């Protein structure tokens, strides 16, 4: 179903922007931007964009850590959309809660990209206040995505291009970070935390960066009674801790004293089972271009021109 939906959106994009598509045919090497929308930040620090369903403008969270796009149950009720049970979806939220209902919305407009119908998973829990849903990998992966936080823009580009340097906004130094997509489509790459290499997922839907507690205990020999291991919160699946890690590095980006919360494995349970989630605390300091076809992130500091 996800494939059909993605195709629908891609088809809509080509139909809605025929002129630009023609340009793309004439000059296949040119980078073609198909949508550019204002991107704000909600109180949880995650990125929001405007999105229209049947004439109603909603605020949606851009979530690279999700699988399918979602609408909150409150939004589904407010727009009087149908709720359809999904048999054996297997989808789960961060924390393990099952996602077992979906809906269909019509007359979609996202920065000029249009679709007559779009499927959303219904999210049973509250999103950050004012946020109606999430746009996730079923949409994001159809294009290349640019997060320009300092200029408050989220841009989508056609993937059919041949630029070798996609950090087009600067002639200065930038980092290129190869990644792979895990089985649910999350962007995954290796990071180095205090000298230990760990697979990490890139998640704009996560306010903070998180590390699996048990993995941290294995890698760094952390004991429960380590005085540097500070309990900061509790979940139904165990306590959450902080530890004073010194340095996190990935692809030329170096973060000192990274703000990482250590969650029990069961509390982190989410598709793909990432051991470290790189969240917005770090991501918002960057300007990023995600090139899905090349499987590379192009990165500078957020303020780089």
């Amino acid at each position: 179903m996800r494939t059909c939906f993605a195709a629908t959106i891609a088809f809509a994009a080509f139909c809605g922007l025929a002129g630009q598509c023609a340009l793309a045919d004439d000059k296949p090497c040119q980078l073609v931007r198909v949508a550019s929308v204002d991107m704000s930040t909600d109180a949880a620090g995650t990125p929001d964009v405007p999105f229209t369903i049947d004439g109603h403008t909603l605020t949606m969270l851009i979530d690279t850590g999700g699988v399918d796009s979602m609408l909150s149950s409150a939004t589904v009720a407010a727009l009087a959309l149908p709720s359809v049970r999904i048999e054996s979806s297997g989808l789960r939220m961060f924390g393990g809660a099952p996602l077992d209902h979906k809906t269909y919305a019509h007359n979609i407009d996202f920065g000029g990209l249009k679709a007559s119908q779009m499927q959303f998973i219904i999210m049973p829990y509250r999103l950050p206040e004012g946020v109606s849903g999430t746009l996730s990998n079923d949409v994001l992966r159809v294009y290349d995505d640019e997060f320009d936080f300092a200029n408050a823009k989220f841009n989508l580009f056609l993937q059919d291009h041949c630029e070798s340097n996609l950090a087009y906004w600067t002639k200065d130094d930038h980092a290129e970070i190869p990644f792979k997509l895990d089985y649910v489509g999350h962007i995954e790459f290796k990071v180095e935390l205090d000298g230990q290499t760990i697979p990490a997922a890139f998640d704009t839907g996560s306010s903070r960066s998180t590390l699996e507690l048990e993995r941290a205990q294995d890698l760094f020999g952390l004991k429960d009674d380590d005085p540097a291991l500070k309990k900061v919160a509790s979940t139904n699946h165990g306590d959450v801790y902080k530890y004073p890690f010194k340095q996190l590095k990935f692809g030329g980006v170096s973060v000192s004293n990274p703000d990482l919360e250590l969650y029990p494995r069961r509390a982190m349970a989410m598709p793909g089972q990432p051991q470290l989630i790189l969240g917005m605390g770090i991501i918002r300091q960057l300007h990023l271009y995600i090139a899905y076809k090349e499987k590379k992130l192009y990165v500078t500091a957020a303020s780089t021109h």
Partner: protein
Amino acid sequence: MLPGVGARLRRLLLVVVLVGGACGVANGAAYDDFARGISANLQGDPALAVSSFSAALAAGDLNPTLLPAAYRGRAIAYLRQGQCKNALADLDDFLRLKPGDLQGLELRGRAHACTGDMRGAEADLSQAIAVQSSESLRFARGVVRWGLRDFAGSAADFADIIAAQPHNANVVLWLELVRTRGGILDAKIGERDLHGIDSDDWPAPLIKMFLGAAKPEDVAAAALHGDANVVSGRQCEANFYIAEWWLAQKDTASAKPLLEAAIKDCPKNFIEAEAARSELGTLK
């Protein structure tokens, strides 16, 4: 430059500053301050959040799309610091930029309540509920109406939440509190609400007290069970709710020292801390 980003990005930022200056484009520093403010709020550092958002706003070149978030972020930090009037001013600016925004109305409602303007708080929360009701908005208005001594209106808000969330023990507690204070408690309905939470654990002893099934001294004793962290929170709650029970019995003298203890000992993020302060203010 945000703390925590290492040498390579510092070098990139240095280039940015030079290029930006030459081109007359200089929103980098404002954005860095903005981003630092967002992180500071999430990490529970309101002082750093206020200074960072203030720097971002003062720079004058923060991207206009981010301006509302900067005002909202600083207002949240001000609220955490108890600087209610500053929070109110920022939320006025936020709502000028985003009229009718639900979160802005909810936050401004909190800021009004924080300044003691319960009518202003009720107006903002009612406006938000009229657009799109939610449990958090209903709960906030229920507490504000308790502050206004509109116990029937308060009970209606809490009862609406219970209809959807019968297991929500904290809302049942507030519902029985305002029913008791307002003299509109029906013991049978209260028993049904208590049955709905399906637990004898805390805060059930508090609810039983309002329903007449437990005495204040039983509640005070129950609050002492558990580990040290749990006990300090429960003692805070016991002090506030037992004070409310005494006020329902028209015994202000017994209520006052308990309210003073709640103000002194309750963690700042406990609703009972602000509620005790508000209640004591009305008794003076």
